[in-house]
């Protein structure tokens, strides 16, 4: 395959970026999207040019490090798939592919396609945990949990923190990310003592980081590589309302 890539290049967070056209040659169908970029980078290095910087690590869809807007869609055309699991058989010879970094004020560009997602860490630090010290636990089976609740908590806990929800939201909202954690812990009995405080603190932190509000576009749900549904947000809103009224 031969592809015409249009790639966002930006030296660092202070300088202006631009789209560069780069031709990718000798691409095969069984390459992953990131292996295609590896190949392009090897060719750029051979030509004495600087390779394209992008974030990636596990390359099996679980660490949440990879990103990329591919033809305007977070993680590309396949649903329920991270960029690292996207394969070139989803594209055709001669295709033009537009590759951009996550787009959000709360995720500044570091270089080329790499962005700074430390805002997510700070939202988590605001309350995305159960306050228990190591060594304080009772026997694990002393606390039975309804299977349905445990499964629902797991569905929310599947979030990999990649930020696709933010990147594809017209408002740059992090509601799906925050709601996933609020629901994970809020569905479990261990999470009840801090349930109200947690949702308030995390939502406040989210606002302080400059993420936008939710206005029900559901773009987040459409691109989430772990298929976390948008009704997770509705549940968080209910928790938040309840917590605010009970103050």
């Amino acid at each position, binding site marked *: 395959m031969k592809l015409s890539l249009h790639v966002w290049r930006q030296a660092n967070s202070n300088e202006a970026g631009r789209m560069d056209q780069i031709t990718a040659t000798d691409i095969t169908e069984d390459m992953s999207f990131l292996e295609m970029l590896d190949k392009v980078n090897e060719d750029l290095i051979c030509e004495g040019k600087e390779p394209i910087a992008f974030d990636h690590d596990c390359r*099996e*869809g679980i660490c949440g490090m990879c990103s990329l807007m591919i033809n305007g869609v977070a993680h590309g055309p396949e649903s329920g798939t991270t960029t690292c699991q996207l394969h070139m058989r989803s594209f055709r010879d001669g295709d033009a592919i537009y590759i951009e970094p996550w787009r959000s004020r709360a995720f500044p560009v570091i270089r080329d396609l790499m962005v700074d997602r430390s805002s997510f860490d700070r939202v988590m630090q605001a309350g995305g945990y159960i306050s228990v010290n190591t060594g304080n636990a009772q026997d*694990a089976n002393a606390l039975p949990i309804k299977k349905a609740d445990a499964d629902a908590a797991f569905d929310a806990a599947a979030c990999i923190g990649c930020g696709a929800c933010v990147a594809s939201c017209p408002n740059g909202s992090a509601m799906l990310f925050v709601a996933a954690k609020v629901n994970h812990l809020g569905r479990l009995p*261990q999470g009840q003592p801090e349930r109200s405080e947690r949702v308030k603190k995390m939502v406040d932190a989210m606002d302080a980081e400059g993420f936008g509000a939710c206005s029900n576009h559901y773009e987040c749900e459409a691109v989430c590589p772990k298929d976390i549904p948008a009704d997770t947000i509705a549940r968080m809103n209910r928790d938040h309302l309840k917590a605010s009224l009970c103050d």
Partner: protein
Amino acid sequence: MKLDSKIPGGPIQNKWTEHRFNMKLVNPANKRKFRVIVVGSGLAGGAAAATLGELGYNVDCFCFQDSARRAHSIAAQGGINAAKNYPNDGDSIWRLFYDTVKGGDYRAREANVYRLAEISSNIIDTCVAQGVPFAREYGGLLDNRSFGGAQVSRTFYARGQTGQQLLIGAYQALSRQVSKGSVTMHTRTELQEIVVVDGHARGIITRNLVTGKLTRHAADAVLLCTGGYGNVFYLSTNAMGSNVTAAVKAWKKGAGFANPCYTQIHPTCIPVSSEHQSKLTLMSESLRYDGRVWVPKKKGDTRAPNVIPEDERDYYLERRYPSFGNLVPRDVASRAAKERCDAGYGVGSTGLAVYLDFSDAIDRLGEDAVRARYGNLFHMYEKITAENPYKVPMKIFPAVHYTMGGLWVDYELQTTVPGLFALGECNFSDHGANRLGASALMQGLADGYFVAPYTVGHYLAQHGSMGASGKVTTDHPAFAESENALRDRIDRLMNINGSQSVESFHKRLGKIMWDECGMARDKSGLRGAIEDIQALQKEFWSDVCVPGSKDGCNPELDKAGRVADFLEFGELMCRDALMREESCGGHFRKEHQTEDGEARRDDDNYAFAGVWEYQGDGDGDEPSLHKENLEFEHVKLTTRSYK
């Protein structure tokens, strides 16, 4: 180098309890006067940093990823063992201990493994309290499943994402400490040097991967929780950034490196499809419970698998190991696949694959039941290969997965450099020559939550620089010396301006390692590999091309440093494999096998941990070998047989 394992006396059941009592404590008011560095934020590092923070120490935690939550522990699929005996099937601490020592082919230290089994139950309790959503039964209690090398169901799991859920648990605990100010996180920051003052580890030098800035960090103790070195093979199931740099730096500062040749090749991975492949993907070991492994009986049979009749298929694991069949441990299953492929019976375009067939299970249980058990794995397989495993057998091949070798540590997880600790996969301690499934998560969390928090305190109470000698600060000449050495190395890398990419060197190293130090090794191959690696290393330092600048974000420079260390380390692995004239666990020497191709151990001469001491970089400098003899008082050494 003196190897004092510090194994406490007394009955094995009481060793840890008594040792905890005998260890010195740090007064709560004094804890905040100590600074502890934790490198790595996976299960071992994240757990240790959070717990030390809870105890009141000042902790600085470093990771090269953009968040602590991305560490590669996250990719573990199958589960975590614990001797809870919830299913009432006869499990006990003693049985978990015994299985783990046996599974490690009798090359682990008994006292450490016993402690691991003892702590295993506390880990599950802690994780549940943190909100880790383990799989549950309809009655609301925790579910268990069985895993390779065990005849009881002791594995706790969270679908196929157990590592992710446990890591998020540790990350949440860590986030809580960050909010309290007891832990400072340094993301996108990589360790480049370890600073030793008067024989004690007193700090590190890091490089910021965004700005390129080098920074000195002083501390009273340094914990390395930096994972394994599987990426020395280039292709492995490790994350792209996983590296051996911290361990190599520690080795060069005097820490002994134990058993580097012990590597685990996992039998069920998706085969390599092209030369552009960057990593290999694991298909969980759990698949072998319902899948049957086979190859055609006829050499070079290119027919589609579904048209090959039953009597022309060789279910070689069932044939060779009738009692364990498809459930033999990982090392045995991997070697058997290699044997068939080497003999010309492999399938797929490369001939380097075997079938893992679910058609019997689908006939027996129905497609829906198989989907309920393995749906996410089948989905992942189809995404990568574009083949539907419900209709066509999966093609699988062994791949490098885990490394049992690591920095040598004593019972307190301290390396031979006082004040320098190694936790999790980074150390060598608990898995011997072969790790059983669902034991890596257990060890990482045991070290981080329940061992290091005590033993580091014990060290600080005795040697922490709170007393008369005063604190070591970053102004100490040892910091300047390490930083200057680092600057020189970076300049050297940037100024070679050669013609070959970093990646191409890494690939060539990987090929040498896989061919000569992979699933089967022999004397002449290893000798050749050592020469080849030395030559490749020379070529690297004269012809590598690192584009860009050292000031700022430069992923190629990050990679160049890591590959330089892999080159050095690959040679050490081959030396260790050459020294060990026996076959045990993941280490298979072709010269040492039985007539029917099984591993032959030599307990009389090799029941020791081989510990290598760095002796310099000059021509003719060779690392020296030290031995820690392994005493087996409780587990009887037998030949592992799965026939």
